[in-house]
């Protein structure tokens, strides 16, 4: 359990929200909803439309494609944004490996959220660039 004030304090330390001031963090905490998932529950479902953007507050998740684990995510990591940005269903399941506490923003709210918080959009772009660079390194 956490109040929006506690959520605002917690996410202040996440790289994604590092550029936000205190009222902006509170606004983020109000716009996102908290969600809690028991161990082994699916949070994101491969191939299903209409999913959200998730930021992990506590716990560890597994990214699985056709049941095979591709990566793990932990506190401060996020997922679901790629399918929302592309308007396509997720290409992977995300499954809770431990009890997981997240904050969630509904898919249709993501574009307005990112355009009104451009520094969050920039941080997200940075993370995507890093992933792309690592993928290119791996290929070469």
């Amino acid at each position: 359990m956490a109040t929006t004030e506690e959520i605002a304090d917690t996410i202040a330390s996440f790289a994604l929200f590092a550029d936000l001031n205190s009222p902006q963090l509170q606004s983020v905490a109000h716009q996102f909803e908290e969600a809690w998932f028991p161990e082994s529950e699916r949070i994101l479902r491969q191939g299903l439309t209409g999913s959200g953007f998730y930021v992990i507050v506590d716990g560890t998740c597994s990214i699985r494609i056709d049941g095979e684990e591709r990566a793990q995510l932990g506190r401060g990591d996020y997922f679901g944004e790629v399918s929302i940005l592309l308007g396509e269903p997720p290409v992977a399941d995300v499954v809770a490996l431990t009890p997981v506490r997240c904050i969630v923003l509904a898919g249709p709210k993501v574009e307005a959220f990112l355009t009104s918080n451009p520094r969050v959009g920039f941080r997200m772009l940075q993370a995507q660039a890093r992933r792309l660079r690592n993928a290119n390194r791996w290929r070469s």
Partner: protein
Amino acid sequence: MAELTERPHPPGDYPVVVVGSGPGGLQVSYFLSRAGIGHAVISADPSPGGMFRRWPFFQRLLSWTKPYAAADRSSRDFERWDWNSLLADEPPLRGLQAEFLDGSSDFPARPEMEANLAAFAERASIAVRYGCRWAATRREDGPDGGRFVLETTDGEYRARVVVIAVGVAEPYSPPTPGIELTSHYADTREAETYAGKRLFIIGKQNSGFELASGLLQWARRITLASPSPAKTSVETHSLVGVRARYVQPFEDSALGGGVDILAAAIESISRLDGSLRVALRRSDNGMPVTVDADEVIAATGFTCPLLDLPALGVATFGQSRLPAQTAFWESATVPGIYFAGTITQGSSGLKKHGIPSYSGAVHGHRNNSRILVRHIAERHFGIPPDRPALAERDVLGYLLGEATRAPELWHQKAYLARVVSTSDADGIRDEGILPLTHVLDSDGPDSIAMTVEADGAGSIYPVVYTRAGGRVEEHALEAHPLLDFETSAHRDQLASILGRVLPAYRGRAV
């Protein structure tokens, strides 16, 4: 005559104990009795109705009942047009709210809703031990497994299965400096006592706008503030946001009519020369703002009065401290503790396109109660659910009829599904209405699940989930301007989907 005045369900051992006598507790007790499962219902209140004994303060409910809708009041179809009556298998017990409307609105007044619930409790003979307050909970190991012990003001109740239906009704105020200078929504007084006052309302959800609407003619000035911008249900195409009934303060604000609606974080409240000063910081640019007011009201929501259940291991989340729940509304962390009523919004389902289940409202959670009892009956009492056989040729028409009319699918979009299974051993079976996440995440025979869904942009359409050989696929059917999903185009589209699971439909492509 002693029997008539005797209070039912004295402390003792019961198969199931239900806590609460609001719509959730009454509905679950009704279905437990129908299933023949012995249970006690206890409630701290003196009479049935739960939150509707007190709220909403002003005007009327947010949920309609349309007495002249295109369905007989005693039919299942009428449930789609009646958000307020509890469900019953017997036609005379259905659609009771329609009886208690005075004709001035399709939104019942609070006393009309209370009368509807009291009539259901009486006519369905739901026995509640009123004035019996649940006070503490512990677990006890016995020779036949674990049991829960509920300590109450009347004594101890023991049961293997407990259903908590106590609502989300404990006032919550955030830990803002100076919050002790505010009063909570729950303590709102008669409207005329606010005459001529400058009111500052913390919170921009329905409760905040309900107060603002009710006090427009009394207050000198009204300010509403919270960190995020407010949206209306008309904008979100769902029940998310401020309901259209409370939209007048928006218009007054837009026209400069003495209402201000701010997106700002509330930093502190302090006393200043006989009035209160609220210090805010704007969400858009971080600039400070101060507002002076005669009264500050915290319309900041409610939490679940779960008492010591968290100490027993019940995980909770969010500002409302809702218990985390399985698809069948069981505590995700303490098996045997189930929830009914508005608390079932803690089993949030998929929230596709950001649209939540409507379990927070009667028209949503009353359906959950029926499924919950079916689940408890099967799992804890070995009572198998009805799974009537279906002829293969009837499946298509049956599912399109459900998508067009089924109140469960319309009130719990992308949350409850009509499920049909097929296997060599059992043939084709109607599995009933089940939670969608259960259908998606459990193993089982090949099946088809029909839901009604909305995309949050204005479209409502049926969605079919097929499970064939363990693989689940989602297929959206076309939307229709008049919400008729029984057209020949829908028949063709569904036939081609059913072909993945049912051989008779193969080759009937679009």
